[in-house]
């Protein structure tokens, strides 16, 4: 009965490959997020979706494309992976529309290593 789940947990791949990370939440939340945590533990938001609609798109390379098939899922596809994409990617969700910045519930993270 995991609240926010991500797959895979670990992802090791070669530069130039395309990969996807999946996220699902069973909390009934309306808003979902993708964050990137670098090696210095700095956590930065990448995208947020509310009811399948894109709300936030930070200055992220367009090689990163989020897709929300329904409000319980937010997947992240990354094209042409680069060494600098190596990081831990976290999915999160929250109730409401996101504009009140409610409590967020995080998934366990996907550790991406690009070789």
């Amino acid at each position, binding site marked *: 009965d995991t609240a926010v789940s991500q797959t895979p947990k670990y992802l090791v791949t070669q530069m130039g490959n395309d990969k996807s990370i999946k996220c699902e939440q069973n909390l009934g939340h309306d808003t979902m997020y993708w*964050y990137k945590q670098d090696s210095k*533990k700095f*956590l*930065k938001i990448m995208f947020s979706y509310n009811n399948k609609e894109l709300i936030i798109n930070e200055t992220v390379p367009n090689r990163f494309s989020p897709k929300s098939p329904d409000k319980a899922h937010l997947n992240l596809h990354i094209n042409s992976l680069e060494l600098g994409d190596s990081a831990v990617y976290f999915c*999160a969700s929250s109730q409401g529309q996101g504009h*009140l*910045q409610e409590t967020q*519930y*995080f998934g366990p993270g996907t550790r991406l290593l690009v070789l």
Partner: protein
Amino acid sequence: SQQGEEDPQALSIQEGENATMNCSYKTSINNLQWYRQNSGRGLVHLILIRSNEREKHSGRLRVTLDTSKKSSSLLITASRAADTASYFCATAVWGAQKLVFGQGTRLTINP
């Protein structure tokens, strides 16, 4: 520099002692939240304090907010080995529709 900055970056204390972490921010906020991250895990929400609140308690946690100084502190009393983790403050900036996280304080509780 970041919206939320924690201080100190690392803290090591003996079990049973109190741990205090501070967070400073720059712009007006709707609320400020504290999260804990155990090694290799996701972030877990600890406490949310709104801009019109000054202090909040949850178990062994005490959070204060001083909007005039744009700062917050997290106090963990009677620390336990299980409290070893990184602690992040996150600010909910008015109109920004997102939380902005600091780099965290890495807390180590020595048995």
